């Protein structure tokens, strides 16, 4: 056991910090859920990419730095500590890309990864449908085989920032006689074509965070199938339950937020809330140290396994506790929507819902870790 960073890790951190110090915009960008704000965020992504910080864990040939998972965590800590803009390519890099690395053809990797890292082509996840939320296997969107590919029809929803994307990816029923997990395929769909219409959905913040996607015989070339036909469930699950559990919300995010909460407390000290502030601070540290444990295991060849579900339960509850404590410190001023804590609070409330509800995560923990019987 050695819980100190190596010299190389220290050097990596120093390099991150120096670049971020010099380049992070002084004034926060407009929300990335507005069209103008999204464009500003894309510009930032391009700058990040040019400096080689967009995809640190990727191979150098693809614009990365071959960084280890541990270095990636360090990058994330520095990134959040610097107050840098939210990553609008997050889902591209951490959800679609790992799937391509694991299941994509060489042609797909060559064609898709580089423009993704450079924020030239933007992707949106399209997992949910109106009747397939927690019950993801209930997908109804179909893909009809045609010459050179498929024609897809149906409706996808809750596509984060889908209104601003170039393409979506998700599961489609390629075997129309199939049920549940069988007969699904993992496809990427270009949204700039006839048969695709996007409708923005306003969220609690009053912004176009999500889009509904209506598909009516839109074309998907054969080359946009990831993995094998009818094996989409396996492909999707493999990614969502592996790295995703680590990358969705890195500890750096909560380390930075807890530190900001300490500052807020010092500005608005309120003894009856002190222990809650300390508690969130401790939990942010525990989350970081537990992640180091998981990453150590992964770097030795292990898998994240069900820690993915435990992580999600932990950070989503921590996030709400943290933001709510901030609002309580602000008292009557909390209501004023201009304060960044209120936006963070509203967003934190979605944490137990997205990326698999916390009810689903508890089911997974109960059945896979505790091995409690299903019936």
């Amino acid at each position: 056991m050695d819980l100190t960073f190596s010299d190389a890790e220290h050097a990596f951190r120093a390099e991150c910090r120096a670049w971020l110090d010099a380049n992070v915009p002084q004034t926060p960008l407009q929300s990335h859920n507005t069209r103008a704000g999204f464009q500003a965020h894309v510009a930032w992504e391009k700058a990040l990419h040019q400096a080689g910080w967009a995809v640190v864990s990727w191979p150098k040939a693809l614009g990365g730095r071959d960084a280890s998972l541990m270095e990636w965590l360090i990058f994330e800590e520095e990134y959040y500590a610097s107050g840098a803009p939210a990553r609008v390519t997050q889902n591209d890099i951490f959800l679609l890309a790992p799937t391509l690395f694991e299941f994509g053809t060489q042609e797909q990797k060559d064609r898709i990864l580089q423009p993704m890292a450079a924020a030239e082509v933007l992707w949106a996840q399209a997992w949910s449908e109106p009747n397939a939320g927690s019950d993801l296997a209930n997908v109804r969107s179909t893909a009809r085989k045609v010459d050179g590919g498929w024609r897809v029809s149906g409706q996808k929803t809750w596509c984060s920032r889908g209104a601003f994307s170039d393409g979506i990816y998700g599961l489609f029923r390629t075997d129309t006689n199939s049920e549940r997990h069988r007969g699904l395929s993992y496809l990427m769909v270009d949204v700039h074509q006839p048969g695709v219409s996007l409708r923005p959905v306003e969220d609690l913040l009053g912004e176009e965070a999500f889009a509904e996607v209506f598909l009516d015989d839109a074309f998907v070339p054969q080359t946009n199938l990831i993995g094998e036909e009818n094996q989409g469930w396996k492909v999707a699950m493999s990614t969502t339950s592996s790295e995703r559990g680590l990358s969705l919300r890195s500890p750096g995010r909560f380390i930075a937020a807890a530190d900001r909460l300490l500052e807020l407390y010092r500005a608005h000290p309120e003894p009856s809330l002190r222990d809650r502030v300390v508690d969130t601070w401790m939990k942010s540290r525990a989350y970081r140290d537990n992640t180091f444990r998981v990453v150590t295991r992964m770097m030795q060849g292990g898998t994240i396994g069900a820690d993915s579900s435990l992580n999600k339960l932990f950070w989503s509850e921590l996030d709400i506790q943290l933001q709510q404590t901030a609002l309580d410190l602000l008292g009557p001023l909390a209501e004023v929507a201009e304060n960044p804590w209120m936006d963070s609070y509203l967003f934190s409330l979605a944490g137990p819902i997205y990326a698999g509800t916390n009810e689903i995560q508890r089911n997974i923990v109960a059945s896979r870790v505790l091995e409690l019987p299903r019936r």
Partner: protein
Amino acid sequence: MHFALNEDQAMLRDAVADTLQDACTADVLRAAWTGTNPALWRPLAELGIFGLSLSENRGGMGLSEVEESAVAVEMGRVGFPGPFAETLAAVPFITHQSALLESGLAGDQPLAVAVEGHPIANAREAARVFQTHGSEIAVFTDPTCTDLPSVDPTRALCLVTGDVRSWPGDGQRLRQRATLFTAAMLVGLSHRMLDLAVAYAKERRQFGKAIGTFQAVQHRLADALLALRFAEAPIQRAAFSLATQADSADIDVSTAKAMASEAADTVARAALQVHGANGYTFEFDLHLFHKRVIALQRAWGDARWHRANVAGHLLLDSKENTHA
């Protein structure tokens, strides 16, 4: 001891509820979010709501906070937009200005009020803007509003500056009344959110059955009802204490607001979780009420403030001491 509304009180409440159900639908609320100011106040004024606790010879009904808070619960249930709690609280304090009183009773123009130094909701549209400071009340003679966006767009917060002059009446009581009516609205809002969540849980199907059949959903909603149920009696207790000027009135009002704020938060979070991503959007009704809860649970003192207030009354603020 008779801990229930009597027949007249229940009839009044039901009449208000009926009027509101037709007048203040979710679509009306949605319009209020985008700036439309619906003519909602007049039909309520016609029921005599703003004069409930005024004596009959002043055009009121000679009733008290008991009836007023029962009405406020119903206002909360429909998410009534605008400074309702404040106007209801303040009307009895304007009896010496007959034109103003008349306009207040008629629902023509609301009144705005907050504790000194706090942002004031809906000050721009108000006939008068008051602030309380301990037992004092002051009115802004020439208010200047700096707009501050509230998390709930119907609340149009202002930081009000300008000269003030003293206004007759007990500021403590005005604050207590506004606090109580806000707490009552939170209870009504909680009922609505719980109803929406239960209806959604019965309708929404996943894994081949209604999600309301899952024990995790059932227990979460049962806990929401639990919090809500035990926030109800404290509202009535506080109303009665105010009406009878009981010694415990300030403690009772703080208990009511603390418990209502916490209950509304518990119910809102349960309702959102049950709604899943749908509870997070503008298209479903839930968030119209949820946003109001986020605002009102902090207006007129959040649970923490009121616990501290009660701690003072209970003499828990003497000296300090730590173990070990």
